[in-house]
Every structure is written in C-alpha cells, then in structure tokens.
C-alpha cells in the first residue's frame, strides 16, 4: 500500500511527488501516457510569471508570487536551467497605459517586487527590436523563463531517485474506497493508497468525480505556439507580453532557455480534451500579433508548431482542496500554473500535514539532481576527459543541437526512463533542432531499441500506436 498516490506526471504532480519524497512515505505517481510531462506541461509558454496578473487575494496570486520566489532554488537543486530575463507588458496607447498602471497596482498588492513603467526611449534601449508603435511597458524584473518539461522530468527523476515509483500507461478508470484509503484502478491493474493527489490536468474533473466530487468542471483552452530556430533567439531578450484585454493575455514573444524564440499562445475554448490540432487561423493570429509587437520576426525560421490545452477550471481560481478525506485536488491549474507549481507542492504538503499524515524525514533524501551531461556546454578539457572515460560522448548523433550518443544513453538509463523518441527529445534535445530529427531519428531509434532491449520496429514516437516503422522491407532483416 502506498501512502500517497499522485495522479498525473506533469510539472505539478512531479513537484508534489518530489516534495513528499523528503519524507518516509511510499509514493506512487500514475501517468496515463507513455512518458511524463505529456499534458499541458509539454506545451505552454514556459514562463515564470512575476505575479501581477492574478486577482488580488486569489490562490493564483498567492501561489504565483510564492512560486516565483521558490523557482530559482528549486531549479538549482534539480539542475534545471532557469533564467530571470524579466518581462515587459507593452502598451500601444494611453488606454493601454491605464491598464498597465492597474496591473502595476495589482502587482504591488500581490507583493511583486521591482515593478515599474518604462517609457519609450528606455524601452527601446532595452529591446531594440520592439515595434516603434509601442509607447511604454510594465517592466517586471522578477519574470523568468524555464523549460517546463525539463522541470517535470527532473522533479520526477529526483522523486524516483528518492524512492517514489512511477507507473506510466496507467489510465485511471476508477477510485474506490478501500481499507484506510483508496484503491485506484486502471483497466488492468490497481494500486492501493492512503492518500490520492489529483494532478490530472484537463482530466482532473473526471478524477474528482470518481470520488463523488462534482463541484467543478475543467474545460480545455487551446493554445497554439510557433517555435523558431535558435538563430532567432536574440530577437528579444525579455518576455514580451501585450497589454491584456477582455480576450486574455494575448500572444507573447519570448526567448526560451535554449535560445529558441517562442511565439504564442492563441486562446480558444474547445470541448474535446484530446484535440491538440494547430489551425491555420491560429498561425495567422500568431504571425499578425507578433508583427505588431516586434520588428522583423523571421517567421520562415519556424522549426515546429504545436498546441497545448490549458486546464481551465469552472471556479476561475486554482482548485486546491480536499473534498473528501484522503483525496486532494490540484485542479484548474492553468496559467500561472508552471510558476506556481513549487508553491502548489508546498501548499499540498501543508494540507497533508494538517490532515495528520506523519511526515517523518527521510534521512537518505537528496534534493540534488545532477543535470543531464551537456557535451556542448562542457569545456574542451572536460569533453576530452568525458570521452576518454566513455567514448560514446565523442560521437555526435544530433548534429543540429550537438547531442552525443553518450548523452542519449545516459538519458535512457536515468529516472524517469524514456521509452519513445519524443521522450529522448525532451530529455536530450536530440531531434529538437532545425532538421527535427530528419538525420538523427533513425540513429536515435537504434540506440533506444538497443538500450531497452526491444526490436527496432517496436519503437514509437510517443507510445500507443505511434509506431515509426510498420514492417520490414522486402529484403529487410531485423
């Protein structure tokens, strides 16, 4: 029997599991997909928000500001790249300026530090590529960027290194009361547990209903993005938001921690929780908005586009509560969910403590997770040492991102183990560059098959039926 079972291996579930792994608890993470970080975690703006957006007094405001303060230390412990690049909400008119002033006041109430309005001259010095039509901006020096799936992978890897279990392809179909807790079932297996933490993203309402909690609904809100080549990462150095309107926060332009340029998201409410299609309308909206904010964005340098689904809760705020004994919701975690995730984990830890769960410190707990070795970032001397120890680090597999065979093998051997090509991509960046796996895909397939001890043709892109190859050729031999 587990003490705590976390449903959903996204960034929230991951950080919850990790913070509980400090204690002598038996922890299980259940994930319906073939890998961790497969929901909203893998497709969002990758922004650490300063905290001026959320309504004063809301849980969102509180956890956003707290999460922002925690993020740097969490990233340091987990070996995740975090850059405090600062954010700018830009205004085109005096009406916009009034909104920016309101935002600043709200930020001050929310305890956001360092906010100020910058005027055109200073602004264009800070960001020479901004449109000349922009007259002022709200500057938030505490805004930052982080890679959300890297954070989730690192948190879950660290939790597992500290004893937590991860079960992928475990799609929860029922939660039943059991002695001292719950029995959480999928179609073909089950776990028993004292506590359940519901971090199931767009499906968190479905999970809550399994224990009779009908108090909220989640609907998906589509957000499409375009990701540009690393050549374009210097277009802007801050995260550039537009002045929010009734239509939402609008389409941002931001560098990523890997120095790509990210444009998006669009914002459309939909009903299908599986529909992650990008749309022609969405691309036009992104391109048009970006052309208004930034001069000369080379949209033809797009290397990929994708769509994520935000989990929008029916209450307007994060839904973090315990509707029945032993069951905790962390639902409706839309923006600023990534920023808030470490604070949500802390909040839930406190809830468990208050509920009487004995939190005895795990003496073997190690909060530090070594980052994946980065060949590219190593000095020539380090590189030579590493290659001498393990020649696989001398073989570059992904030429666009400069990723070696050694790094791919390391990623496969570490927690949480990737079992498909996209899993390797998110951990190592092999296949993430400008050729999008055109050259290295067949090699990565080979390395993965060999390491997992499975056949070449069984390798998938992201689990399920997403097979890369369908059969042998006429003369092919496995």
């Amino acid at each position: 029997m587990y003490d705590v079972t976390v449903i959903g291996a996204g960034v929230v579930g991951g950080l919850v599991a990790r913070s509980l792994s400090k204690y002598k608890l038996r922890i299980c993470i259940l994930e319906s997909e073939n890998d961790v970080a497969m929901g909203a975690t893998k497709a969002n703006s990758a922004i650490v928000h300063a905290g001026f957006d959320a309504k004063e007094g809301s849980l969102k405001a509180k956890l956003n500001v707290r999460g922002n303060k925690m993020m740097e230390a969490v990233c340091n412990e987990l070996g995740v790249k975090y850059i405090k690049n600062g954010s700018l909400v830009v205004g085109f008119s005096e009406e916009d300026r009034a909104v920016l002033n309101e935002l600043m006041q709200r930020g001050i109430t929310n305890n956001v530090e360092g906010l100020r309005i910058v005027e055109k001259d200073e602004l264009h010095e800070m960001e020479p590529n901004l449109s000349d039509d922009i007259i002022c901006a709200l500057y938030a020096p505490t805004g930052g960027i982080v890679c959300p799936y890297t954070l989730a992978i690192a948190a879950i890897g660290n939790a597992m290194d500290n004893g937590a279990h991860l079960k992928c392809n475990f799609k929860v179909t029922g939660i039943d009361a059991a002695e001292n807790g719950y029995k959480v079932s999928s179609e073909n297996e089950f776990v028993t547990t004292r506590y359940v933490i519901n971090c199931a993203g767009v499906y968190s309402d479905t999970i809550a209903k399994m224990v009779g909690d009908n108090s909220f609904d989640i609907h998906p809100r589509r957000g499409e993005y375009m990701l540009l080549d690393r050549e374009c990462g210097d277009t802007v150095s801050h995260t550039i938001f537009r002045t929010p309107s009734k239509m939402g926060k609008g389409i941002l332009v931001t560098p990523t921690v890997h120095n790509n340029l990210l444009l998006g998201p669009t914002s459309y409410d939909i009903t299908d929780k599986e529909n992650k299609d990008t749309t022609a309308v969405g691309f036009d909206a992104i391109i048009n908005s970006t052309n208004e904010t930034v001069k000369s964005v080379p949209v033809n340098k797009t290397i990929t586009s994708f769509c994520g689904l935000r989990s929008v809760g029916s209450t307007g705020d994060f839904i973090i509560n315990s509707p029945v004994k032993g069951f905790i919701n962390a639902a409706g975690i839309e923006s600023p969910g990534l920023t808030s995730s470490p604070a949500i984990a802390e909040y839930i830890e406190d809830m468990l403590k208050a509920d009487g769960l004995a939190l005895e410190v795990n003496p073997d707990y190690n909060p530090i997770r070594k980052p994946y070795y980065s060949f590219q970032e190593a000095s020539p001397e380090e590189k030579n040492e590493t290659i001498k120890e393990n020649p696989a680090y001398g073989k570059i597999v992904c030429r666009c991102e400069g990723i070696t065979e050694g790094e791919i093998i390391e990623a496969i051997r570490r927690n949480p183990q990737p079992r498909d090509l996209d899993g390797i991509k998110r951990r190592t960046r092999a296949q993430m560059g400008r050729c999008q796996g055109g050259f290295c895909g067949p090699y990565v397939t080979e390395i993965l098959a060999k390491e997992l001890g499975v056949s070449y043709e069984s390798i998938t892109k992201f689990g399920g039926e997403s097979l890369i190859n369908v059969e042998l050729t006429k003369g092919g031999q496995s």
Partner: protein
Amino acid sequence: MKDLVIIGGGPAGMSAAIAAYENGVKDILILERDENLGGILQQCIHNGFGLHKFGEELTGPEYAWRYEKKVRELGIEFKLNTMVLDVSEDKVVTATNTQDGIFQIEAKAIILAMGCRERSKGALNIAGSRPAGIYSAGTAQKFVNMKGYLPGKNIVILGSGDIGLIMARRMTLEGAKVHAVCELMPYSGGLARNIEQCLNDFDIPLKLSHTIIQIHGKDRVDGVTIAKVDERRKPIAGSEEYIPCDTILFSVGLVPENELSRTANVSLSPITNGAIVDQDRQTSIEGIFSCGNVLHVHDLVDYVSEEAEIAGKAAVEYIKGTKDDSVLIPVKTDGKIRYTVPQRITKKKDVAVYFRVSNIYKNVMIKVSDGDKTLLSKKKIKVAPGEMECITLKKEIFENAKELYFSLEEM
C-alpha cells in the same frame, strides 16, 4: 598542421581530395561525420548517377565507390565518425570522435563540403495534429534503404523535389500505395526524367498547385486534407479533398548546411544559402573553399564532382601560392535568373557560370551584359527552376567588363 583539410567525405569532399592530390598536394585529411564515406549517395540506391561523368548509369553507392576506391588507392587520409564542431577564420578546425576526443588541426587551406539537408515540415505551418508517420523523404529513404524498415503503407507526398519523386517509386516497389504527390507550385521542382520514371510509370498522380492543409490522426497519421491553391499559393475554399493515409513524406526543398561556414565568418548568399564564391569556389575568406551541395543545391551528382574538382585544384594553387585573385568582377542577376555560381570571377580565365531561373519560362534569351553592352546571348526553348543551367564564357569576351549581368528575356 595539414596542407588541406576537407570537411565532408561525400561526393564533393572525395572529388576535391582526389583533384588536390593529383595536382600535387598530398597532405590531405578528410573529416566525415558518418561511419562511411559517400555521404547521402549511400542511401540513393536507384540508378541514374554518372551518366554525364562516366557515360554509364550507376547507382548512388556505385558512383560513390568510384571515388572512395580512388581515395583509398591514393592513400588519402580520412577520419570517419568524426564531427567537425568549429572552423575558425584562421583555418583551425576543431572536431571530435570517439578515439581522438576533441582535437584541433591547423590547415593551410580548407574545403567545405558538408552537403545539404532537407527543409523540415516545421517551416510550412501545416495545421492539424502531430502524430507519428510524418517524415522527410530522405529520412524515409534511410529507413527503407539503409535500415530495412518500411515507415508506412499508404503514402501522401508533399513536394515534388527529386527525393520525393524517387521515394514515391521506392515505396511503391516495396508494396506501399502512394496516393498522391502534391506540389504547391504550378510546376515540379524535380527533374523531368524523374516525373516520367517515378510517377508516370507507376500511375502516381502529381497534383500541381496543391498543398496539404491539415494533418489528421492521433497516434499515427490517418489522413490528410489537401486543397488546390491560387496564384498567391493560398488554399482555395471548396477545393478540399480528404485522403486517408498512414504516412506523409515531405520533399519541400534542400538547404545547404552552412553552420560551420558561419563559424568561420564566410559570407553567405541569402538566395543560395551557400557561400559567395569566386570562379575557383573560394569563399570570402582566402584559403577556404566551398563546393557541392553546401555551396548550392545541384540536380546531378556529376556536377557536384566537377565543381569539387575546381575547388580541389584551386586549393592546391592557394597552398602553393600561385592562385591569382586579381581583377575580380561581380556577376549579377535580374531576378528572373535567381542566382549564379560563382558570384564573382577573375578576368584572367574562361569560366563556366551555373545558374537557376525563378520560374518556368519558354522561348527565352539568356543575356550576359556589361552595362549597355551585350557580351553574349543564348536562346533556350524552355528553362525551369528544377534544372540548373550553365553558360561558359571565354575570357576574351569579358576581359574589359566591369561586371557581368545575367538577364532573361521572354521572346
């Protein structure tokens, strides 16, 4: 220290090495990132290579082997599985492999011969989902010809570049059904002979002025929506057609791989995406040469080999101090002629100028002029973007010219 370091052991690199060796520079090192010499030819198992160069129809591996055999016979040094990480302006090459670790070599001259890569689907902004079953044509070619696996059974191909056409036939021969080849432009970018032999001979429909507007499928592709496009290449409402398929191949253009040229500060052309070179294929940096598909994308490997010979010979002249770079004049174009290679030439020798046009034109006059003065004109019945053209100029006709202006007039 090496006299000559060649980056890339494909057809360009090998041909350049042999030419350099035969012209008297023997201290050569070829650095190749793959486990074999031959480059992309290794996976091009179809025939049609070498007609121009050897008067025979060879397969890709056979063509490559002619050069590899020579490289081996001459004892030209090469390192396989070796990735070059940096080339500096002062000709220091940094590379890595499993045996040597990171190492640096100073070279008297460098030839860039890294080839090209396929433009990926990403830049096209096609709406829809992101399932498995989407490959560039070259990746599918690698799976089928090198690994022995079939990536799908029901195929739609976007783009009628040569690799896409070749793969339409190859997949068909492996038992897959190719439902359509869609081409955004009103003409194909591939060679006429490939349209005939790879599509027409197998009754595969080529849908010109068509594109994929939506990809369907959750885990694996289960279909595409295609549509006809207007003259601005925008989809025409009402022309949509759904084609069930499990695989989409993209053959939407090739891009010279000039990441290393950039590290060396070589000036690049925004049109070819390759280096700007003189008649000897010397780049903006003295002693650094560029040839093959890294310089500009060729239709035929035979022309790659020829171009690499020019670069190999010139590198020898540079190393020996006999290369004469005086009196260079620029070669310019009118836009209908998209680009030329070389982009600047010496007045001291005859030169073959290669060029591509920007559209299909019939009954045209290609003119080479200097100001108001027409130096040469040549009639052509038909020119197309997919077929590289060449005009050889005798030095006598341009020895007094200030520039060479290439223009196309429709008659």
